[in-house]
């Protein structure tokens, strides 16, 4: 089925379905992923078609979910684990950081940990506390993990295929507020490498770098800026560990200005690393310091304040103006 228009949630669903079909070792596990199909319906219909042995409703215990997934991986399975919401990954953090991330190295390469952890993340859906967070930096800092986030349906499909095929643990952050955004998905295409960034809009004045839900925001900002006569290049980073600095560098060498945008708090967010490293790589090219737009150093606010908290088009354009003013 080449070139079908699909929502991101559906694309992930199709990708999981494909993986379950193709490889009998693939498992889907998590809270409510079975009959309910997950609270976002991303696993809808999978248990019906593949049975309770492959699509597993787990007890309500995230450390247990990841810990048993590690055991299953050691037995040769390839578990795809769902964490119901971003804010509920922390009970599993110990298993992820001290076990999942390090076990391959601990074993001098003798065991592999092909575990995918799916985390619907980010805000903008009017939810209560713990349902709108962007903790990606807390995973990207940790060696042994790979961290990615798709921004569109085609990437959602293909990056999930690649994450499952990868012999390393991959934290797959799903931009939950974009779940219903539709896009073409060519399921016969040859996808770009999992950890490559992609220039999704070309421009000459300033580069915007983003991933996941903020790519759309940046594209909108670029469209708005065009009306003001500013030409913005938008890079979809796609991967937060590793980060494709070559693609970012190439863009910055051209535009000489960079603004990094993410929902996560700015302080020690992934933008800090991009700023530090791109400044090192492009010291003589930059006309302005790398600027960052993101969340504040504050708990994610109640829903009625999230529009103020989240980086929107205006905050992005404000940063663009500041970058251009240097």
């Amino acid at each position, binding site marked *: 089925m080449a070139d079908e228009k699909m929502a991101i949630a559906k694309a992930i669903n199709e990708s999981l379905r494909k993986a379950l079909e193709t490889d009998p070792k693939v498992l889907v596990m998590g*809270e*409510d992923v*079975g*009959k*309910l*199909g997950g*609270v976002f319906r991303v696993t809808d219909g999978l248990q019906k078609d593949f049975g309770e042995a492959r699509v597993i*409703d*787990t*007890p*309500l*215990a995230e*450390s*247990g979910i990841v810990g048993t997934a590690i055991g299953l991986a050691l037995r040769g399975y390839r578990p795809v684990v769902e964490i119901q919401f971003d*804010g*509920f990954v*922390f*009970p599993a953090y110990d298993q992820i950081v001290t076990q999942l991330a390090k076990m391959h190295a601990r074993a001098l390469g003798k065991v592999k940990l092909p575990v995918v952890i799916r985390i619907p993340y980010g805000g903008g859906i*009017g*939810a*209560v*506390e*713990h349902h709108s967070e962007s903790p990606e930096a807390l995973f990207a800092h940790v060696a042994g993990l790979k961290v990615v986030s798709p921004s569109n349906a085609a990437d959602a499909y293909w990056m999930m295929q690649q994450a499952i095929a990868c012999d390393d643990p991959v934290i797959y952050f799903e931009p939950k507020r974009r779940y219903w955004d539709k896009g073409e998905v060519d399921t016969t295409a040859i996808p770009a490498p999992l950890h490559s960034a992609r220039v999704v809009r070309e421009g000459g004045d300033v580069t915007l770098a983003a991933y996941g839900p903020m790519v759309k925001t940046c594209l909108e900002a670029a469209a*708005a800026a065009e009306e003001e006569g500013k030409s913005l290049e938008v890079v979809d980073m796609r991967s937060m560990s590793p980060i494709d600095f070559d693609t970012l560098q190439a863009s910055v060498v051209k535009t000489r200005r960079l603004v990094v945008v993410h929902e996560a708090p700015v*302080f020690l967010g992934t933008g800090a690393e991009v700023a530090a490293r791109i400044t090192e790589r492009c010291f003589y090219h930059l006309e302005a310091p790398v600027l960052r737009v993101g969340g*504040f*150093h*504050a*708990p994610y*606010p*109640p*829903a*009625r*304040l999230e529009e*103020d*908290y989240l980086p929107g*088009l*205006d*905050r992005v*354009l*404000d940063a663009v103006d500041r970058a251009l003013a240097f």
Partner: protein
Amino acid sequence: MSVKSTAARSSRGGAKRRGAAAGREPELVQLLTPEGDRVQHSEYSIDLTPDELRGLYRDMVLTRRFDAEAITLQRQGELGLWASLLGQEAAQIGSGRATRSDDYVFPTYREHGVAWCRGVDPLNLLGMFRGVNNGGWDPNENNFHLYTIVIGSQALHATGYAMGVAKDGADSAVIAYFGDGASSQGDVAEAFTFAAVYNAPVVFFCQNNQWAISEPTERQTRVPIYQRAAGFGFPGVRVDGNDVLACLAVTRAALERARRGEGPMLVEAFTYRMGAHTTSDDATRYRTADERAEWEAKDPIARLQAYLTKEGLADDEFYAALDAESEALAKRVRDGVRAMPNPDPMAIFENVYADGHALVDEERAQFAAYQASFADGEGH
């Protein structure tokens, strides 16, 4: 020499993979049958005045009315979400009324009935569901902690608080609420361990409403939850969670026990979540109408009403007055919610720290300037 293994007995003696709970139901403490008849229990008894009985009835009715109004408000877009307690009124009012004002309560996100008993204004509960705050009351005003969303966390807070009560030499007790799903969380097990080891005056009150979103209790355990306590060294008991008298009696006894310095206890209130998990959930995807109907017959309010009626403890006047009171409450809640102002955006930066933080100060100032730039017409 014989093996000392109670587990070997209980499990080998018939536990099936899909849970003993489904097969041989263990007995549960009941003082009022679904038909509204009083029964006696060898260990737990209660003697209430007609006023007290009517009071419990009133609590349950008002709580249910409030809950229904909240659902309506959610449907109307006034709330972002609501977690209904429908069906769990007896468990919450019974246990809530068992607490003393100096006791301290740690709820989940569904304890609206307990909040009611503690004197928290229902309007305050709605703030987080409307999205104007993440918990809008002063916990110390009514010794009722904020709602906790991360499943199981509060069991540890309750235990620590209880350790503090014991240190202070106070005779207060602490009660921690959680659900059947929560029983799987490591934090709850660790709370059991700390409570036992320090003999903390805490009652663990588990409302087993049969479901954790779409997962039935057998996804969490294959034996009844109350039995979990024994292995940590304290008693557990299952109570009919739709029987407000039994819930009151058992919780009161557990709290008294804690006060006497006899340590923690686990109460499993066997009840049912009559509604969906929250207003975002569609329960028809995973459970049958039959199951719901079965529990409908055990309704906590109907059963107390039957008793009041049989005993002639409440007349039409009482019911009419309560109806009016219910509608007045609903109206107050409705009007109150609609009048709730959106918070000032600058509130984002408030209370992040008690003693201040340079980065927050910097970001607050930047954001204020940014906001001002629009007012000045300098923005985009």
